């Protein structure tokens, strides 16, 4: 399954800038390649099959929620002392997944990492859907979800406000802000592409739906000017959120007094973990989809290579955090702190701890090797391990600390019930359902942005050729370039 040599742009050669996208596509051909995915009257067979399965799991999720709401939180295995289990584990897991999307779309944009253009739409979509899945869990773990509006500070006849000193309250703001900004960023970035789909639409309905979604985009210079401004501003707005949201999530734990939670390392540790898990999820989704839709020329080996490097870097940070936690526990001289970590590694949940260490620390070490970074199937397997490992990391943090706190008389063991297991499975179903709908109905690669990094984009400026080498004849006639641009609309 390794790539043919002509598709390998992962080399680094001084003085030679590797092309960001491959093939000799004209602007129009890129549109053609991406837009036809959503324009085919029938989705490919594998799409129908996976969509049916995902939808079935979404129904399972809804059924589990209905069961939970009618019977109560007793259907979960939670009880004192372990009052947080799968619910919060899943919440942190899904929120973490989202962070890669925002990092790719906002931070890499501000840092002018142009390779992001091929994958940002895709990763942002993943962010939106992951945050939707994440949002479910805090909402349902309250036990009485019909009172969830109490989480918001609204004027009321009780003259009561939420406890603003509680990190759980900050969480509500962090996650809802994150969702709003991510959604706006995603949508605004999609406007030119939605207009392209509108212009190519063959049916009245598609024309109308994409037309409304495109907000009347006509691609005038003024449109582009405003668009670029808004996009830059939103990127600036989203950038701090990458760091702040998961920091706030970590406060849910760090602000409490529980050994194993009450640690100053938590915010950076959680952010690194979030990016780690997010990139793993991007790879898990991207590798099969790139193959299925033949997008290897847009999402190149170099993209995979870059993402694998980020995976390795953040994996090392997470591994460092695991190690330093033990150091802190020992160095603090605090009996309870030391016991907590002894208990993590050798206590009743040690199996989960060692799964976590293996998946998050040992497995990513293979990305020191270029072959592992550039071979899609190895990368896919590695990213799956990381997904599993990062879920277990949250499980270990949430459950081990709660199950063994200060007084041995308070100790307890938590076992998830079938309802919790099916809820987790169902949340994956919802995630994939939304994702597959996105692949089917929206442009999964930012066509307009990718056109700015193809070699042809910089031809008329002589030596400044944008990204990548242009092999072959350089057409000097201005008309020909404009012709290429004109083609994109057909």
């Amino acid at each position: 399954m390794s790539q043919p040599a002509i598709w390998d742009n992962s080399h680094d050669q001084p003085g030679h800038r590797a092309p960001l996208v491959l093939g000799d596509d004209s602007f129009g051909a890129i549109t053609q390649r991406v837009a036809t995915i959503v324009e085919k009257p029938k989705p490919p067979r594998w799409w129908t099959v996976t969509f049916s399965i995902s939808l079935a799991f979404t129904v399972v999720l809804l059924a589990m929620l209905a069961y939970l709401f009618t019977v109560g939180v007793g259907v979960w295995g939670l009880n004192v002392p372990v009052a947080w289990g799968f619910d919060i584990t899943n919440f942190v897991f899904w929120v973490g997944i989202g962070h890669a999307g925002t990092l790719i779309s906002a931070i890499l944009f501000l840092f002018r990492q142009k390779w992001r253009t091929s994958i940002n739409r895709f990763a942002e979509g993943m962010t939106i859907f992951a945050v939707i899945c994440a949002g479910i869990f805090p909402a349902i773990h309250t036990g009485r979800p019909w009172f969830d509006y109490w989480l918001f500070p609204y004027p009321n006849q009780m003259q009561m406000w939420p406890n603003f000193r509680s990190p759980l309250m900050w969480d509500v703001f962090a996650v809802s802000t994150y969702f709003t900004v991510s959604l706006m960023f995603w949508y605004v970035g999609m406007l030119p592409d939605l207009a392209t789909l509108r212009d190519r639409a063959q049916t009245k309905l598609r024309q109308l739906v994409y037309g409304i979604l495109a907000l009347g985009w006509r691609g005038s210079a003024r449109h582009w000017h405003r668009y670029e401004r808004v996009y830059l501003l939103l990127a600036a707005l989203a950038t701090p959120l990458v760091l702040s949201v998961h920091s706030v999530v970590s406060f849910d734990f760090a602000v409490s007094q529980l050994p194993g939670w009450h640690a100053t390392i938590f915010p950076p540790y959680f952010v690194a973990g979030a990016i780690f898990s997010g990139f793993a999820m991007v790879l898990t989704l991207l590798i099969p989809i790139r193959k299925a839709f033949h997008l290897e020329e847009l999402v190149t080996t170099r993209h995979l290579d870059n993402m694998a490097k980020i995976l390795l870097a953040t994996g090392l940070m997470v591994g460092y955090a695991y190690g330093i936690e033990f150091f802190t526990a020992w160095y603090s001289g605090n009996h309870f702190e030391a016991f907590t970590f002894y208990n993590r590694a050798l206590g009743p949940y040690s199996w989960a701890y060692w799964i976590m260490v293996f998946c998050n620390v040992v497995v990513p070490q293979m990305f020191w090797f270029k072959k592992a970074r550039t071979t899609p199937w190895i990368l896919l397997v590695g990213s799956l391990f990381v997904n599993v490992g990062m879920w277990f990391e949250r499980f270990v943090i949430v459950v081990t600390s709660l199950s063994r706190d200060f007084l041995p008389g308070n100790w307890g063991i938590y076992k998830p019930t079938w309802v919790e297991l099916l809820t987790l499975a169902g949340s994956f179903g919802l995630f994939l359902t939304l994702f597959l709908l996105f692949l089917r109905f929206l442009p999964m690669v930012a066509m307009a942005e990718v056109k700015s990094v193809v070699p042809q984009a910089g031809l008329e400026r002589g030596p400044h050729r944008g990204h990548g080498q242009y092999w072959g004849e350089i057409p000097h006639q201005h008309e020909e370039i404009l012709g290429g641009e004109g083609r994109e609309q057909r």
Partner: protein
Amino acid sequence: MSEHGRSRWVFPPWVNQLRVVAGVALVVIPVYLVVLVGFGASPRTTDVGYAPEQPVPYSHALHVGQLGLDCRYCHNTVEEAAKAAIPPTQTCMNCHARIRAASPKLLSVRESYATGMPIPWVRVHDLPDYVYFDHSAHVRRGVGCVSCHGRVDTMEVVQQVEPLSMGWCLDCHRNPDPHLRPPELVTSMDWVPPEKPEVYGRRLREQLGIRPSTDCGTCHR
């Protein structure tokens, strides 16, 4: 717009008119919601003024306002208990065994007295079941009856005059001074403080050591 021989679908010109509609809606809908929720659905609107018809046309205006009965003559447990006690029929008959003993208005009182079945009075001031209000705690600290129940001595039919919402409770718990009076004058309907109520109440509060709690557990046990 036609650039490449094919027309693009953009919004038709009439959509521009929707901008006005959208602009108006953007202003009107929030105002409407604020008015609806803030005023329309508040207890001040829905509960205040509740004056159910009682099985006996008992007039507080007559008994308290004109005859000068003290509240505690009928609501006799108000200083010791959480509930202020709806009087038993026997209390009515203390007087009405002789006064207007044949009045047709008192038919059901006499009937109740004869059969021993209580008069089904309709409760006017009804707090939610999860609120544990204690009359004695308030009355003994000098919160006048009139502060919550209004001028009962002028009411032919008793009605609710305050919203009895949690926010209304908290208004006083957070700032009790304007509502305090000497505890022996709680039942007086027309008492006015001798100086500024805030100053007078503050002095009373400090003298009596009144510290109204705003903990959840004070009212929600």
